[in-house]
């Protein structure tokens, strides 16, 4: 059976996209699923979080997109399989823009490996450029990590417009699973109000539980492992385990 391809996208930076992608990947792996995580961000935070030095890599997702190198040539196995990135990917935007069918570069590349995995998770960059469009075109579903603070709703609105564009131009079946609240501070009324506002304003589902802010996530990234490996009993690890189960159930039917 082909993998479910899920993109994690939000053009706002610093909302825990990468942490969410990697943690959900580790959570799904804990459920016995075969997972491939694709780093589509030139900042290579996912690659780094998985314990790989991006600057030491000779071949990355950039070569897959630009030179059409087969994906399996660049896969690195850590907690889950990773398609790594480094700063070279920044140039891929310019190269791809000149090509016909530029939106399909990642979808085309993943065709060779989708039979080998249960899930392919794509960590999109914090922009709405051609790399994000590639991620959303290759995906069947989208998850939006959302930092619970003011102005977050603007980012959701813009992203929902982009999802409409994607459905119109390249991927009519793209579905939104929902929003994952990150860096949540349940003690503040503001965080709860932001979530209620986003849910009611855009009619999107807020997935539960919310993930609380914690220094443990940064420590796990520094150690090159997921929060599940670094602090398995931490509430953040438990939250992502539950969210992985929720996401897994959404594809079960």
């Amino acid at each position, binding site marked *: 059976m082909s993998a479910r391809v899920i993109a994690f996208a939000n053009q706002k930076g610093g909302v825990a996209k990468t942490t969410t992608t990697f943690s959900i990947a580790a959570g799904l792996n804990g459920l016995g699923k075969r997972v491939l995580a694709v780093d589509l961000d030139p900042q290579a935070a996912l690659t780094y979080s998985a314990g790989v030095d991006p600057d030491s890599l000779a071949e990355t997702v950039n070569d897959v997109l630009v030179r059409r190198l087969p994906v399996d040539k660049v896969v690195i196995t850590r907690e889950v399989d990773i398609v790594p990135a480094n700063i070279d990917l920044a140039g891929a935007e310019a190269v791809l823009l000149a090509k*016909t*069918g*530029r*939106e399909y570069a990642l979808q085309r590349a993943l065709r060779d490996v989708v039979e080998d995995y249960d899930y392919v998770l794509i960590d999109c960059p914090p922009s709405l450029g051609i790399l994000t469009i590639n991620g959303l075109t290759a995906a069947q579903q989208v998850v939006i990590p959302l930092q619970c603070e003011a102005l977050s709703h603007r980012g959701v609105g813009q992203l*929902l*417009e982009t999802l*409409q564009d994607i459905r119109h*131009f390249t991927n009519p079946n793209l579905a939104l699973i929902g929003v994952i609240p990150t860096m949540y501070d349940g003690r503040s009324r503001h965080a709860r109000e932001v979530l209620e506002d986003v849910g009611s304003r855009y009619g999107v589902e807020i997935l539960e539980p919310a993930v609380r802010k914690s220094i443990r996530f940064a420590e796990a990234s520094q150690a090159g492992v997921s929060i599940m490996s670094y602090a398995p009993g931490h509430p953040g690890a438990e939250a992502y385990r539950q969210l992985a189960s929720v996401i897994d159930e959404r594809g079960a039917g």
Partner: protein
Amino acid sequence: MSVRDDVPSKHALYTKSDRKARTLTVECSTCREETRVSYLELAALLFPVHVHVPLVKYHHSWMRCPACGRRTWVRLHLDR
């Protein structure tokens, strides 16, 4: 919600938005590039000899690729 027609700039990211009338895309089996050409350019690529075997092969036409310049099997798309 429909796609807004008053924001063409962001739509420039999509191939479909720069599709022009009377063009088609050549997908090369050798270099794997996809290149948009006009009908006039296609005629030049077909010259002096070309072969077409529709339904038999995915890359069903043997002609010169506009990207790599080699004579090879390609697929022609009217709409991509």
